């Protein structure tokens, strides 16, 4: 029974052959694996050493001092702990500005991204030939760091929240556009064909056929982006645009004596980010869970 039923034994010679071939393969694999590992370790260590040498302070000296600065801030803040609530109220309008910048840019960027993503999804595009163009456009929008656009726009438009808003919106358009079009690709084309057969226009097909299918996923990504944009907006404030980042920079630059302000802003920023993080992940779970 055994001989007839278990597959076909391939014979001793063939077995040796397979063993040798496999050993050869294993050796190459091990070699490649080894090389990869060595390359990775070499890259990491040499990168580390290079960064260390090009840095003003060395890693090993610095690591001991990591807590100096937070220590000073905490010390001063705890001495003036009674002032903190008032300071937090003082900086609250700046925080609102930062959040407004994030919200406006997410909205504007998201709305444009919707259009661009529809235009650049195969099967949905209004002008199939221009898909490549719209995709490259989004790639470039994604590639430009917000800070560049913001600073250039400050030169043209003057200070204020608008340059930051435009800069973040631009990046958001590119980033969300790509994600949206990935979602769009998974949308079923059947309802679209159904609508097309009734003589619906492109806009009607998109709005009635695609949007209901993909909106929850869009919204979930947009929420995630909103959270990211709050951070970006704070950072832009730090390098020249308005909002809480600007206050942080001034307080922090002045240093000792205003560390209570620094602490107040840190706390505001931290709470805001955690708040929106939790909010957005809550809604995302809800939205995507429903799908």
């Amino acid at each position, binding site marked *: 029974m055994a001989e007839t039923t278990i597959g076909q034994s391939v014979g001793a010679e063939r077995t040796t052959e397979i063993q040798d071939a496999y050993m050869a393969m294993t050796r190459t694999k091990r070699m490649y694996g080894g090389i990869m590992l060595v390359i990775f370790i070499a890259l990491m260590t040499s990168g580390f050493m290079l960064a260390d040498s090009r840095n*003003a302070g060395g890693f090993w000296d610095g690591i001991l001092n990591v807590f100096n600065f937070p220590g000073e801030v905490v010390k001063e803040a705890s001495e003036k702990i009674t002032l903190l609530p008032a300071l937090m109220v003082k900086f609250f309008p700046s925080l609102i500005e930062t959040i407004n910048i994030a919200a406006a840019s997410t909205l504007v960027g998201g709305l444009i991204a919707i259009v661009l993503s529809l235009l650049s999804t195969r099967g949905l595009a209004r002008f199939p030939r221009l898909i490549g163009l719209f995709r490259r456009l989004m790639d470039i929008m994604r590639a430009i760091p917000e800070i560049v656009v913001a600073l250039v726009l400050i030169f043209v438009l003057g200070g204020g929240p608008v340059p930051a808003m435009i800069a973040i919106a631009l990046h958001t358009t590119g980033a969300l556009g790509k994600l949206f079009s990935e979602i769009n690709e998974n949308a079923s084309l059947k309802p679209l064909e159904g609508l097309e057969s009734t003589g619906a226009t492109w806009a009607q097909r998109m709005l009635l056929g695609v949007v209901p299918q993909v909106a929850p996923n869009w919204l979930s990504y947009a929420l995630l982006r909103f959270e990211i944009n709050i951070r970006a907006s704070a950072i832009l404030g730090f390098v020249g645009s308005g909002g809480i980042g600007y206050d942080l920079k001034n307080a922090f630059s002045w240093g000792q004596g205003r560390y209570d302000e620094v602490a107040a802003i840190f706390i505001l920023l931290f709470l805001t980010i955690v708040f929106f993080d939790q909010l957005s992940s809550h809604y995302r779970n809800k939205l995507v869970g429903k799908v």
Partner: protein
Amino acid sequence: QDSISEFRIGILGGENAQDRMTSNECYRAKAEELLGVPVKLFTPADYDGVIQGLVGGSIDMAWLGASGYAKAYLTDPDAIEPIMVKTNLDKSFGYHSIGFARKDSGITSLDDMKGKVFAFGDPNSTSGYLIPSIEIPQATGASMESGDYFGEVKFVGGHEQTIVAVANGDVDAGVTWADGMGDWEDGYNSGALRKASDAGLVDMNELVEIWKSKPIPEGPIVLRKDLPERVKLDITTLTASLPYMDADCAYSFMAGEALGFQPIDHDDYISIIEARKSKM
């Protein structure tokens, strides 16, 4: 510890990072030759970056403003010591904070500035913040809080940004530094206005001076206190003799015409430190 493995010089803002590197390259090369260890230049993004570096020990030498020195001293009195100060052609070592506005705005003095937008430079700048923030309230009789006398008071980040912001009309007036000698139309003999005018950034015809501070002591060149004595001595000697050794190098290192350097110590900055303390 009596030896170092490298020597790190921090350079304050005011020009873009590349130009800062270029202007100080000859000094770096001389220091490297003298000290026999690699000398590196660092150009942090703002005043505070340099001060943090000095206090944190990651930068060994820098040329600070008076207020910057005060800040470093107040943060850690044992971190750095001043060694030299630049002397002007007339042997004084001071400069002024200058308030200025656009000519077509009709503003000619602080009196016209009521309710208008006023700009400081960097919070750690002596002429761009500390001194005007003390002397201007004395002149106006009101605080510098937004809405108190001025409509709004803000920091635009640095001398160049102040000049550009005023020229663009983003703010109504701002303060920056100049030696106060020579002609207004040239932007004085030296200072931020001169540099901006030379660079074609602004047309001095379009600006007017609206306020001028009392003389401010020039900022010191500082070294970290725990550097080996030998190193301190070498650097002091090198700096002091720079104008005689290599005039071109001294010119670019000192950002303009100046007589040279003279030694200075902590006591010359006590008043500035007090001024800064009063703002805390």
